[in-house]
C-alpha cells in the first residue's frame, strides 16, 4: 500500500516536471517552481562517522505558549554549543490540541518518527510501545549509574510501563488541583472549600457577590470530569476506567457537577469558552476557583498567582473518594525511537542529548519554568511560587496520586463524557444516563 501510494505521488511529481520541460525554454516555469522541495524535516538517516554532522529531530510540547519553552530551547542550545556537529530540529505542538495524540501516533506508525519524542506516559503510549517503535531504556539507565541515581526513585517508578520496562525518561511531573484565590475568599469572608459542604457554601456565597465561583469550560471539560469523578468514585474505581461494570459512584460525580451548577458555580458562558479562556477568568480575578494543572500557575497574572493556593478537590458525599485523592504524576517523558537507536551514528548523539535534557541542571531549569515536580532527586527549583509549593505539599499529603481519567478510557468514550457535561448540568440527562452512554461507546470500541 505504502509503496503504491508513493509511486503515485512520485509519478505526479515527475509529470509536473515533464510537462514543465515540454514547455521548453519559454516563460513556462510554473511546474518547476511548484516543485521546489519544501522544508521537509531532515530524514536523512545515512550513517555518518562521529565528527560528521548529525541531524536530530526532537518533538515535544515545549512550544507556543508553554511556560518552559525558553528553558527547553536553552537546554538544546547548550547541547549544540558543546557538540557543534549535532544539529537539532526543535519540533513542537501544543498538548492542549485535540489533534496532538493523533499526530504523534501517526508520526510514529508511519516511519516519520522523531529521534527523541516527548510524550505521555501510560495508556496513551501503549500503541507506540506495542508496535516496537520506541526502545526500552533500562540498559542505558543501568549503564550510567550516575545518571540513573540522579532521578528521584518515585519518578522512575512512575515512568515504568505496565510491562515493567522503562521506555520514557521523566523530566518534570505535574499535579492538578483546585486553584483557589485566597484573597477573594478572605475579602468576602468565605471559608476555603476544604469539604463538600464548604464548597457548596462557597459557591453560593461567591455567586451572591457576583464572582464566578468555579471557572471551567463544558466542552474542554477535562479537568472538571477528572476531579468530579475521582472525588466521587475514588482512586481505585477511577483507575479501572469503564472496561468492566459501571461503578454507580461515577454518576454521583456528574450529579455533583449539576448540584454545583444549580448553585451557580460556573461562568455564564461556560458552554462556549475553552480551557484558555476559563483560566483567563481566574487569572483576571473574575473567578475565585479553577481546576487546573501545575503548568497553568506560571501563566497566571502576578497578582492572582500571589494569592493562589492549591487544594485537593473535596470528596463528594456518598462516594468513595477520600478528599485527598489527587490527579498528578510524571505524565510525560522522553522516548527514543527504535530507528534512531539502531542507527549507530545517531544513537550516541541522541543518548547524549537525552542525558543532557534529563540532567539535574536542566530538570531544575525546566521545573522552575513550568512549576512541575522535578524528576531529579534533591533538586529544589528556584523562585517557586507559593502556589506551586502548596501543590507539592498537597501531593505529598495525598492518599493517592492518579493519572487523569482520559488516559483510562478511549478517546471516543472521553468525548462522549465531555459532550454530556452540559446536558447533565442543565438537567437534560442524569449522571447515570451519561455514564451509561459512555460505557456503551467504550464497549463498542473493544
Amino acid at each position, binding site marked *: 500500500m*505504502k509503496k503504491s501510494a508513493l509511486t503515485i505521488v512520485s509519478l505526479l511529481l515527475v509529470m509536473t516536471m515533464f510537462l514543465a520541460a515540454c514547455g521548453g525554454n519559454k516563460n513556462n516555469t510554473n511546474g518547476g517552481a*511548484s516543485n521546489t522541495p519544501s*522544508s521537509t524535516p531532515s530524514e536523512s538517516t545515512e550513517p555518518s562517522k562521529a565528527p560528521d554532522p548529525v541531524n536530530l529531530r526532537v518533538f515535544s510540547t515545549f512550544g507556543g*505558549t508553554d511556560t518552559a519553552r525558553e528553558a527547553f530551547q536553552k537546554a538544546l542550545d547548550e547541547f549544540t554549543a558543546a557538540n557543534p556537529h549535532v544539529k537539532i530540529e526543535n519540533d513542537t505542538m501544543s498538548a492542549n490540541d485535540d489533534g496532538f495524540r493523533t499526530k504523534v501516533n501517526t508520526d510514529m506508525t508511519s*516511519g516519520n518518527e522523531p529521534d527523541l519524542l516527548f510524550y505521555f506516559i501510560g495508556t496513551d503510549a501503549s500503541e507506540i510501545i506495542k508496535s516496537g517503535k520506541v526502545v526500552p531504556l533500562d540498559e542505558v539507565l543501568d549503564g550510567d549509574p550516575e545518571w540513573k541515581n540522579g532521578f528521584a526513585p518515585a519518578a522512575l517508578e512512575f515512568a515504568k510501563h505496565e510491562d515493567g520496562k522503562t521506555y520514557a525518561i521523566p523530566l518534570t511531573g505535574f499535579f492538578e488541583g483546585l486553584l483557589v484565590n485566597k484573597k477573594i475568599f478572605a475579602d468576602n469572608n468565605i471559608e476555603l472549600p476544604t469539604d463538600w459542604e464548604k464548597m457548596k457554601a462557597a459557591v453560593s456565597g461567591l455567586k451572591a457577590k457576583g464572582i464566578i465561583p468555579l471557572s471551567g469550560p463544558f466542552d474542554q471539560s477535562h479537568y472538571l470530569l477528572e476531579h468530579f469523578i475521582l472525588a466521587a468514585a475514588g482512586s481505585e474505581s477511577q483507575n479501572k476506567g469503564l472496561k468492566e461494570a459501571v461503578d454507580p459512584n461515577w454518576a454521583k460525580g456528574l450529579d455533583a457537577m449539576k448540584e454545583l451548577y444549580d448553585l451557580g458555580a460556573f461562568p455564564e458562558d461556560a458552554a462556549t469558552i475553552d480551557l*484558555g479562556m476559563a483560566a483567563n477568568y481566574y487569572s483576571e480575578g473574575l473567578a475565585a476557583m479553577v481546576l487546573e494543572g501545575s503548568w497553568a500557575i506560571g501563566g497566571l497574572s502576578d497578582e492572582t498567582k500571589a494569592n493562589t493556593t492549591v487544594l485537593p478537590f473535596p470528596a463528594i458525599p456518598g462516594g468513595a473518594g477520600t478528599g485527598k485523592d489527587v490527579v498528578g504524576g510524571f505524565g510525560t517523558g522522553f522516548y527514543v525511537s527504535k530507528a534512531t537507536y539502531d542507527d549507530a551514528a545517531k544513537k550516541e548523539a541522541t543518548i547524549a542529548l537525552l542525558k543532557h535534557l534529563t540532567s539535574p541542571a536542566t530538570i531544575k531549569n525546566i521545573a522552575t519554568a513550568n512549576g512541575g515536580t522535578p524528576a531529579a532527586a534533591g533538586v529544589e527549583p528556584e523562585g517557586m511560587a507559593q502556589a506551586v509549593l502548596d501543590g507539592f505539599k498537597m501531593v505529598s499529603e495525598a492518599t493517592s496520586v492518579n493519572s487523569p481519567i482520559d488516559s483510562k478510557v478511549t478517546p471516543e468514550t472521553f468525548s462522549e463524557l465531555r459532550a454530556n457535561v452540559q446536558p447533565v448540568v442543565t438537567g437534560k440527562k442524569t449522571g447515570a444516563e451519561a455514564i451509561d452512554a459512555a460505557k456503551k461507546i467504550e464497549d463498542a470500541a473493544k
Partner: protein
Amino acid sequence: MQQLARGEQKVYKRKKINFSVGQLISYLVLFAWSLSTIYAMFWIVNNSFKVSRDVMNSSFKIAFDPVMVNYTNAFDRINIGKGYLNSLIMSGGTVLLVLLFGGLAAYVLSRFNFRGRKALFSILYASLLIPAFATVVPVYELLIKTQLVNTYFGLMFPQTAGNLTFAILVLAGYMSTIPKELEEAAFIDGCNRFTLFTKILLPISRPAFASAAIFVFLWSYNDLFSALIFVNKEAVRPIVLLLSEISSQYGTDFGLMATAVSLTVVPVLIVYLFISKYIEKGLTEGAVKG
C-alpha cells in the same frame, strides 16, 4: 466579456432617471451596509494599536497614541511572519498546480472533440458535490503513508485536487468562446498542440486564468479545515491555523487578537483593491462554487 461590456453600455443608457426619494433611501441603505464592512475593518485595525485593556474599555476611541506592542508580540510570540510565509508558499503552489493542470485539461475539454468528453464533464460536475469532509480521512491516511503530512505538499496536493474542478470549468467555459479560426491559422503555421496552448490559448485566456487564480488562492488561503488536519505543526502552519489558535491561547489579549486579524486582513485588502475587477469578472464567468 463582450457580453458584459454590452450590458454595461445599456446600463449607461438607463442612467437618466431623476434623483428621487427612492434613490435617497437606496443610498442610505447601501451606505449603511458598506459601513458594516468599512467600519468593521477600521475598528479592528484601530484597536490593533491599543493595549488589551483599552480595547475592552474604549474600543471606539481612535488610537491617536498608537502602541506597537501587539505587533511585536505577533511577530515574536506567535510567529505570524512564518505563518504568512507558509501560507504564501502553500497557497501559491496550489494556484500554480491548479492553473497548469487545470489549464491543460480545460484546453482539451473545450477545444477537442472526442468520445467521452460529455462523460468527463458529468464527472466534473459530480465532483462539485464531494465536500472536503468526504475525502479527509483517506487523504490523511495517504499523506501519512507517503510521509507528506505536515509538509507543504501535504496541503498543496489535496487542495489542488479540490480546486481543479472549479478551475477546469471556468477555464473551459472561457476557452470555448475563443474562435476556432485563430487556432487553425496557427496550426497551419506549424505550431503543435502544445505551442498552440502556450502561444495562443494561454495569452487569450489570461483574464480567466487570473480570476481562477484569485479564487483558488482565496479558498486555499482561507481553508481552515484542511490546514487543521494536514499541516498542523509549527514549522508548516499557515496563517488561518494560527488565527484559530490565538483565540484559545491568548483569549483575553484583545489587542493581540485585533492585531492578528488586521495582519491577516490588511494585505488581502490591499491586493484586493488592485485586482477587484478580475474577481468580479471571474464570478461572472463561472460561479460554480460556494
